[in-house]
């Protein structure tokens, strides 16, 4: 799994590629926690190149979102497709988070 972070004006873009499983999910969570602790509040997770997510990845997302929620922050998702989209939908994440087709759409929703 690779994580790339790009800070923009109003938002931090976190691009994750590869597989997010029990081995790699803690890296994602740690990276996000560091950014949240540094004061970043609005995140777009660009999952265009994420090919697999397991329950451990979902748990890391929930833990990060819970932390952000208490700081009035926001976690959005862009580009989710294939099996990752199926997992998000079956897990009910579609009703918990904003899922956008593209990064631009996610950016525009922030305003």
């Amino acid at each position: 799994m690779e994580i790339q972070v790009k800070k923009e004006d109003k938002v931090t873009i976190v691009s994750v590629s590869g597989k997010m499983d029990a081995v790699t999910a803690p890296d994602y969570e740690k990276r996000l926690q560091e950014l949240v602790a540094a004061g970043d509040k609005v995140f777009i997770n660009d999952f265009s190149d994420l090919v697999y997510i397991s329950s451990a990845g979902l748990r890391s997302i929930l833990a990060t979102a819970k932390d952000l929620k208490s700081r009035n922050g926001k976690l959005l998702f862009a580009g989710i497709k294939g099996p990752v989209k199926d997992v998000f939908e079956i897990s009910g994440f579609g009703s918990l988070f904003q899922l956008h087709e593209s990064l631009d759409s996610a950016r525009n929703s922030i305003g």
Partner: protein
Amino acid sequence: MKGKHTGIDLHQQFIEVFNREEMLAFFDFRTETSQANFATGLCKISKPKEGTSDTPYFSLLFIIETPDEETWRIVDSWFSSINWDDLRNRLPEFESVLSIPFTLQKFTGNFFQEIDIYVREDTPPSRSFILGALFPAVRSVSGIDPGEPVFWEDLPSSNNGHTIESSNASLLERLQNLIRL
């Protein structure tokens, strides 16, 4: 002559049901699925949103990491061996249980199973009920080794008259409707 099929999109039906539920808490867990085989997973605890179900229930969605189909089969076999009716002996508020397997056409690398626990109408969706009654009962019946539950919303800490009431279609009712189609 070819017959006309009326397809039922179960995947879509489940998504619609999830939209009628709200997550209360989640926890991760580890379990021994067979001799020397361990699996890790996530459990989401939800309840129907107000005004969406006639029957009060807690919905437990178990998501377990199964990187290959052999692991999926082992987890499926382990999960099938759990006797959820044992909740009757451990949870006085227990009314009935509905186990809903998610067998998908596409392999996603995860095992999904929903357990809906129907409870008495006066059962509060409180933090103390979940921590003190529901969570230990589920742990005991399933044999999982869970982490500490994390609460998504601020729930009342104890019984204060709130119940998990509702009024339209629960998952059970929706499945009954589907069977009638």
